[in-house]
């Protein structure tokens, strides 16, 4: 079917699948049925079955992911709204974010390196804890594989949302503020939405962790990777 290559059709299909995936998740309430993951999987299946090369899909897809950068800029609004909250607990928040950011990058790089991953893959894993648009920007700037980053980031989010609170309890992190922050720092927007389900307070601190770790990771990663022996 030559028509399937039509870029407007492919954009329509992307909207349709995402909309349907969101509906299904709402009905069933399963975190694992993440609409992003489901839509990506279904589109890859569709392209493979119809034999449409990715480059054809990309022509339409480009118009969607064009909005990634403006969307990151828009995150400045919630950051502004949280400034007061940050000021109240400046030191605990900043220090825990810095430590979380460093541990996140160093641990993923070292484990991947020891297990024999290539530099290209290691670079793509480095920003895995932060929200996808920021993580992809970081990976793109350093010569990794942005789509691998996107997939890993989504999986990290699911991991945090499903097991995050269990891991925190096991690790004896008890204060609600610390738990919320950790959820956002380790597993970005998906972790934040899981925290939001507990209560608004958890959610507010989680979104703080999400934004601050995003900024720190973007600033630190390009300079940290060479120190860890990864060309960037």
């Amino acid at each position, binding site marked *: 079917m030559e028509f399937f290559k039509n870029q407007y059709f492919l954009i329509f299909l992307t909207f349709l699948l995402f909309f349907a995936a969101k509906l299904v998740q709402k009905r069933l309430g399963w975190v694992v049925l993440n609409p992003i993951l489901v839509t990506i999987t279904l589109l890859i299946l569709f392209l493979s079955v119809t034999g449409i090369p990715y480059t054809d899909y990309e022509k339409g897809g480009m118009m969607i992911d064009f909005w990634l950068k403006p969307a990151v800029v828009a995150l400045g609004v919630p950051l502004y709204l949280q400034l007061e909250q940050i000021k109240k607990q400046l030191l605990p928040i900043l220090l825990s974010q810095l430590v979380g950011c460093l541990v996140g990058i160093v641990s993923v790089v070292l484990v991947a390196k020891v297990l024999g991953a290539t530099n290209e893959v290691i670079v793509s894993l480095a920003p895995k*804890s932060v929200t996808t648009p920021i993580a992809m920007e970081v990976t793109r700037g350093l010569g990794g594989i942005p789509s691998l980053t996107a997939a890993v980031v989504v999986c990290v989010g699911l*991991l945090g949302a499903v097991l995050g609170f269990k891991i925190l309890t096991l690790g004896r992190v008890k204060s609600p503020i610390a738990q919320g922050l950790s959820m956002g720092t380790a597993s970005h927007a998906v972790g934040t939405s899981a925290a939001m389900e507990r209560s608004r307070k958890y959610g507010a601190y989680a979104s703080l962790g999400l934004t601050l770790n995003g900024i720190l990771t973007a600033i630190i990663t390009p300079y940290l990777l060479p120190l860890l022996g990864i060309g960037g």
Partner: protein
Amino acid sequence: MIRQCAILFGCLAAGELLVFLTGIKLPSSIIGMLLLTLLLKLGWVKLEWVKGLSDFLIANLGFFFVPPGVALMLYFDIIKAQFLPIVAATIVSTALVLVVTGWTHQWVRNKSAKNQE
């Protein structure tokens, strides 16, 4: 809506310009985000001038990275070959970040609370 687009893309373009001029290794979008926060804080940009569009973009953040995610199909070989390092590193690191961030926050907060007593 035009004003909202002008402000958001203005911040983004300023970020692009800064990267272009200084060669700084920071995504232009992050610079734009910080600039927007600053402009809001200074009161040069009013919240209601950007609220509608930014709420829309943030609420649909997930949708925008579907197409780059689909590009994954180009890298199945790499993922298959390095499946173990990718999965192991991700799981270990995520658990560490969760616990260490929480510990640090609790520790610093207890310390500063004690100092105030």
